């Protein structure tokens, strides 16, 4: 973890840190320290526990039903699609 991130974590409220870690746990393996911090906070805070469960439920249904979603208007521009295609080919 960078010094800046560790400073930010100390300045954030425990719930802000917990909700950020709950989200990041879906994108990367948390460090042992982060996992402990998140687990310990969830034991004590029922609102963050609820938030964490709702994020996981949302994540699960999106993965189970990806075909159900139509791409939002805010999705990718043709240029961005083109960049993805190129990036995937390299």
């Amino acid at each position: 973890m960078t010094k800046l991130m560790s400073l930010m974590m100390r300045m954030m409220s425990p719930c802000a840190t917990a909700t950020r870690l709950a989200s990041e746990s879906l994108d990367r393996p948390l460090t042992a320290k982060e996992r402990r911090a998140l687990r310990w906070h969830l034991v004590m805070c029922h609102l963050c526990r609820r938030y964490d469960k709702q994020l996981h439920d949302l994540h699960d249904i999106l993965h189970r039903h990806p075909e159900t979603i139509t791409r939002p208007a805010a999705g990718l521009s043709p240029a961005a699609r083109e960049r993805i295609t190129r990036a995937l080919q390299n």
Partner: protein
Amino acid sequence: MAAGAGPKAWSEDAAQAAERQEFWQVLDGCLEKLPPRTAQAFVLRELDGTDGDEVCKVLNISTTNFWVLLHRARMQLRHCLEQNWFSK
């Protein structure tokens, strides 16, 4: 988490909601409300299943920025769904 600002209990199980067509229309509407960069990162990662490094390359963002965008996307989507679906 501040009282009143915290997440409300959902009125229905997410898996049950996912069986209904109308739920996905509401979710689509919520996705459209996200800022474009946030929506792009979320759609690429969570719906298209694109690898995180790939998303960063395509959107030209740092890994930390990518995590921040996804965190914001999830926070806003959860809130939007709470207001437009799970509180009914």
